[in-house]
């Protein structure tokens, strides 16, 4: 299973194996991660699954939908050029080793 590295705001690292075809959000919350709330359960309606993706790896990700783009304008922690919603990123073998930073706040 692809290995994904989550870095908390305090610098703590958490490496999680997430099955292919599962979203980053689902995979991480199923393993009890703190720092992803996912109030809407992955329906791309809440922006509480916000993550900052390592900039050099952004190109590996699926393109952003209009809905995701609009929601990112309302995130609790400031939107950055590498902001994504983790429920919209489906894990593929190419994402093995992906590094994502968790924001200070989700709500």
């Amino acid at each position, binding site marked *: 299973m692809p290995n994904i590295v989550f870095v908390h705001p305090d610098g703590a690292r958490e490496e999680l194996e997430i099955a292919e075809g599962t979203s980053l959000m689902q995979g991480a*919350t199923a393993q009890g991660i703190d720092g992803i709330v996912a*109030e*809407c359960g992955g*329906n791309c*309606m*809440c922006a509480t699954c916000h993550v900052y993706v390592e900039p050099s790896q952004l190109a590996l990700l699926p393109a952003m939908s209009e809905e995701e783009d*609009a929601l990112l*304008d*309302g995130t609790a922690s400031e939107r950055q050029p590498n902001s994504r919603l983790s429920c919209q990123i489906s894990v593929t073998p190419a994402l093995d080793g992906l590094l994502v930073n968790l924001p200070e706040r989700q*709500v």
Partner: protein
Amino acid sequence: MSIARTVPGSRAPASDVDPFSIEFFEDPHRIHGELREAGPVVWLSRYRVHAVARYAEVHAVLNDWRTFCSSRGVGMDDYATGKPWRPRSLVLETDPPEHDRARAVLNKVLSPAAMKRLREGFTAAAERKVDELLERGSFDAIPDLAEAYPLSVFPDALGMPQEGREHVLPYAAVVFNSFGPDNDLRREALADAAPHMAWVAESCQRGSLAPGGFGAGIHAATDTGEITPEEAPLLVRSLFSAGVDTTVNGIGAAVYCLARFPDQWRKLRAEPSLARAAFEEAVRFESPVQTFFRTTTRPVEIGGVEVGEGEKVLMFLGAANRDPRRWERPDEYDIARRTSGHVGFGSGVHMCVGQLLARLEGEVLLGAMARKIDSIEITGPVRRRYNNTLRGLASLPITVEA
């Protein structure tokens, strides 16, 4: 309830229970459990419809709009064979792609960015309300808190006319009763509906709505061609229907939970930042919106049972939210629970467009209570309010102390 193995009309286990009866509303949980245990899909013989009560099936039906459509109505009435009692909703009672066009307009008006702009005013109103109630000490938490707070913020945020706001809750009661069967609740609601409908229709017109509110924002989308000028009032109507009574019952559920479970209240007192989670867990635990229907667009198998084309399927959201297959200790109200994935706001393309607003109201109100109130005590008889879709109380007498 009697569960027969099979009946003519369906291969699903049959039940003669009436989930739209007063006895059921008084205590739905036991029968929810029986329906879940009976099978992945059950046949409600009284109404001749299939129903799903387990989390997996409810979630699957919600997330398959191609097979389980909304355009034939999300109540028991089939719009393919009968005329809707009011013009169809442009979001709730449509399917993609038609649905998505109208929905995009609401998404924008109720976006996270829009919520950030409302937060300060909603918080101040919540603090005023809690201060006022602390002064009084003893009051009825349904009219004086669960109804009064949303009514103090939502109508202004929408831009409703000042005159006639007393129609808001009765109108919503009609709408949510209308999704049920042709029972006394529905008949009585529709018999008295005319004045409420007339006020809402008038209030949804562009000229009736105050600038800067959600209503004006929806009408502004006609200028860019996203929706037509004929559609705009109907889209505004969705917020009149679903914007107040839902949060009234959501907040009522949360206050009722916190008053009943003192350990959870103490936890919230100690950590007021749990207010948003406490509200969300109340939406899972009580499921203020209990049920919706879909209609099948093709023959489909649910849990090994063949369901024909053009059949109504009832989804028990409240039963799914307490399914032990999905939730640990489902019958416990636990504000530290990870609630993500509950279906109290639905799921899939029709998932509640007002969920962010509902959470904002719940969070700031429970937050203000947690910071200012020390103890909550139920001091009189708790009375339930009966509605074919909404679950909540009519009366919750409480005493609070600082």
